[in-house]
Structure formats: C-alpha cells, structure tokens
C-alpha cells in the first residue's frame, strides 16, 4: 500500500482576531471558531492530488489534540482522506513530542511520504517536519511550493529567502508545505455525509510512549506592543517635508 500521512492540527481560525487572556496565561480560545491549520489543509490537498494522479493508494490524516479535534479530522475525511487517527491529549505538546508521536505512527503505517504544514498558525514553531525527518533518519524539504513524485524520488521546489530552491530527495521523506503549493478544495455536502462513515481511530499519548505536556514553561503571554497612530499629511509636498524633518530623505 502506497500511503501518505498528513498532519491535521486544530487551531484558532485564521480570521479570528487574537485576544490575550487578562491573566496573561495564554490567548482566549473559548467560544472562538476553530479550523484546520491552513498549511495542513494545503498538505492534505497535495496528498489527495498525488493520490488522484494514481501515485498513492491511501491518505491517512493524523491529529493530535483535544477530543474536539475530531471535527477537523472529519473535515479532512470529507475533503478526501481515507481514514483518520486522533491522538487525544488536553495538554500542549512541545514540537519534539509531536514529532515522536508521528514517528511511532510512521513506523507502523510505513508511508512513503509525510506531508505537514510548514508551521501551525497558533504557536508558529515550524519544527515538526524537520524533527520527524530527523527521528526517521530521512530527507526533509521545508516550505515546498512544488512537489513531483516519481521512481522512489521526489523533486521539490521550496521557498527560500533568496527565491526558489530545488532539491532531489529519496523517498520516504517528510515534506512541509507553503501557501503557494495549491489551493485546497471546498468540501461538498455529500462528502460530509460520506465522511461520517470513514474510520477514525482514537489513541492516547501512552499508546506511543510519549509524555503529556511540555518541558517548556509558559511564563506569560502578552499582547504585542502597539504602534502609536501617526500624522496624516494632505499632499506630497507635506509628505516630503515630514520625511525631511525626520531626516529620512
């Protein structure tokens, strides 16, 4: 079975305006819309396209998080994933622990490709793909904007500061995906109904020998410093004057 493993993280929807809790212990998530991490959605879309090209047989979505992560996994199944695994925990895991869970699942499922978002838009760590590739002692490609799979190899283009970089890597490999890789499909109603019948396995961290929580301690979470509102000028001459006054031109 040619299998692709995809990570699906439940995060605060990207359209939600983030507010820090008054006691500085985190951000407000109660009553806030939650969604699949947008980068993970792109990873899933890519996996489905690879399968639709006949280059893979099965796409397995893996989520780690609270019980409600089921909602995001059901969405993943509605998009077209064949089955899902939920590793349930109510604690926030450090990236290495997340990678260890994926390592154990990869050792069982033996995927030829693991596709993950380049980062989750909540903690913005951007580490899991690299760590998983390391633990599996396999190649990685981070921030992919193009993926071609053929003959046990992948040719990937990744977004780097200088432009684009192309690598050839042997499979199996772990890839993290960037925004411009594809545009995820919309879920249709009949697919939502079908997704309810697809298998969703629930596990615990203990099944993988990974401890709850993180060795990293949150001291506090604060709102960012705000910029003070500046001046409004009425024309170009005034703008140039203001820039000269600041010694900027």
């Amino acid at each position, binding site marked *: 079975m040619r299998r692709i493993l995809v990570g699906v993280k439940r995060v605060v929807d990207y359209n939600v305006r983030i507010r820090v809790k008054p006691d500085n212990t985190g951000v407000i998530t109660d009553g806030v819309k939650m969604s699949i991490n947008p980068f993970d959605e792109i990873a899933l879309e890519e996996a489905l396209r690879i399968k639709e090209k006949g280059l893979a047989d099965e796409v397995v979505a893996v989520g780690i998080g609270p019980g409600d992560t089921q909602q995001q996994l059901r969405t993943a199944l509605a998009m077209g994933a064949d089955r899902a695994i939920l590793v349930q925990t109510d604690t926030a895991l450090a990236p290495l622990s997340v990678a260890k869970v994926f390592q154990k699942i990869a050792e069982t499922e033996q995927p030829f490709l693991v596709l993950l978002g380049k980062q989750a838009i909540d903690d913005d760590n951007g580490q899991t793909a690299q*760590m998983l590739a390391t633990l599996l002692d396999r190649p990685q490609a981070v921030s992919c904007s193009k993926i071609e799979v053929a003959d046990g190899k992948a040719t990937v283009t990744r977004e780097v500061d200088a432009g684009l970089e192309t690598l050839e890597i042997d499979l199996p490999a772990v890839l993290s995906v960037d925004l411009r890789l594809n545009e995820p499909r919309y879920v249709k109603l009949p697919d939502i109904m079908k997704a309810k019948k697809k298998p969703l396995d629930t596990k615990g961290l203990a099944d993988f020998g990974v401890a709850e929580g993180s060795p990293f301690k949150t001291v506090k979470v604060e709102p960012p410093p705000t910029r003070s509102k500046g001046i409004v000028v009425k024309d170009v001459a005034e703008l140039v004057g203001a820039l000269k006054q600041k010694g900027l031109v």
Partner: protein
Amino acid sequence: MSKILVVAEHDGAKLNASTLKSVTCASKVPGAAIDVLVLAADASAVAPQAAAIAGVGKVLVVENPANKEPLAAVFAPQVAKLAAGYTHVFGPSTTFGKDLLPRVAALLGVSAVTDIMAVEGAHTFKRPIYAGNAILTVEVPADAPVVATVRVASFEAAAQGGSAAVEKADPGVALPTHTRFVSRSGATSGRPDLQAASRVVAGGRALGSAENFQIIYSLADKIGAAVGASRAAVDAGYVPNDLQVGQTGKIIAPELYFAIGISGAIQHMTGIKDARTIVAINKDAEAPIFESADIGLVGDLFAIVPELEKQLC
C-alpha cells in the same frame, strides 16, 4: 556561564547579515562566550568575515565538498556533533536556520525555541506566537542544550573589529546522500536585498497590474530602496513570491517603509512591525494601514507616486 555556538549563514563568498544579528542575540545571554561555526566547501572567504565580528571568541571551520550547499540533512549531524560542550546553539530564523536548527535540536533530543525576539535570561526568551499577535515568554530547561532560531528583525547587527582565532574542526560523522541540491533561482535585480535594506517601497493589490507595478520599482530605484509587495499583489501575479512582506513572507525592519496601495491586513502588518517609520499611501482613508502608519497620505497612488518621485530628487 553560557557557551554559545552560532551557526553562520553564508553563500560561500559572503557572510549573511543574519549571522551578525544572531551574534548580537547571543551576546544578550548573561555571561555568554560566543563561537561561530562555518560549514562550507571552501571557507577561505567567509571565515575571516566571521572572525572580524566583535565579541566572537573563535571561529570553527568545517570544510567539506558536501557542505557546498546548505542542506539541513547534511549540516545537522555536523552541528549536533560540534555542539558538545556548548550550552546554546543559535542560528538565524531565516529559511536557512528554520530548516536546520530543528533538525539539530532533534539530534540533541530537545525541542527548539523558534524566533527569539528578546533574551530575558540564559533560559528565558520572548518569542512571537499567533502571527505576532501575542508575545510568549518561555522558560526552557536549564539541564539541556538550548537550540534556538533568532528573529533577525529584532536585533541590530553585531559590530566589526573582532579578531577571533580560526580553527579547523572535523566532526567525523557520516553524512547522508539522500538529499541532493539541484538548483536555486533568485531575483538578481541589482536592488538592495529586501531583508537587509534600510528603505523599502512596497506595493499592494491597488497597483492593479504588473505593468503598473513599475512605478513602485521606479520610486524604489530613485531612493535606493528594496522592493516589497503584499500577499495580494503576489497572489495576483504582479511580482514574484520572494518580494512578499508579511507573516507568510518576509519579516523586515527597515528604517523607512512605504506601503503603497496596501490595505494593511494583520498578516502584512506582522511583517513590518519593527519598521522605524511607516508611510502609507492609500485612496481609502479607512484602510487599517493608517492605524499603524507614522505618516499617512490619502489619495490616488497613480498621481502621488510619480509626484513623490519627482519631489524626492
């Protein structure tokens, strides 16, 4: 006492400015002794530049043909091996560092700290989360190595004037061949580098077309600025991807930033939060960009920009 190894980013000829900023971040750690590690096929050009950074104790050099391109899978085992004896391993939070440092961290059995924006102590750091909409102060275990990437926009470049010793090192580890470099394509515009430029002129969706974007290039060239763009302008195909400024593009901290025809979505503002002066030009007086701009001008950019270029001579 903290012993910090800073992994240098370079292109074989020139040390990247991100390395200087990572050294500054390292210097904020109480009692820091800082060494710089240069992995290269030929380090003869870069090692002296690293040795000239003020505050660097020594420069470790690993020369190996396999190190010609900065492949994380190839670099990581060498960095991890040479990290023995160091309390901290730092690298820039550029695409180079983001690729490499988590791989090093995994080999050392720790999670990494992403995007340090302030050092509060040897094991306590501030970093942005939620696209910079919240700032986390995190304390990491003192009994394990600290592996971290440094948010380059948050630190000044370290000064020159050092004269560190350069030492050859041999990590003596097997290197994988499963990852092979094919090519790199980048904009060779002759303009300043977006991430290092002190002035940036950026355009948004309101430009309307790639042809119209020429007025942005023209103004930028007039004042010696780099060119940037909002995600909307990139998605519309007006400019290439590598010009994108914002949370999902480049995070920059120029002295002067012109946001022209850019509405100021949160994800864009995250990329320019540390700009010294933001000038906004937009026809919509209600655009969120004006909330954060130091100088705002409401009007038609197609009239304003050419006029501005004329008056700035």
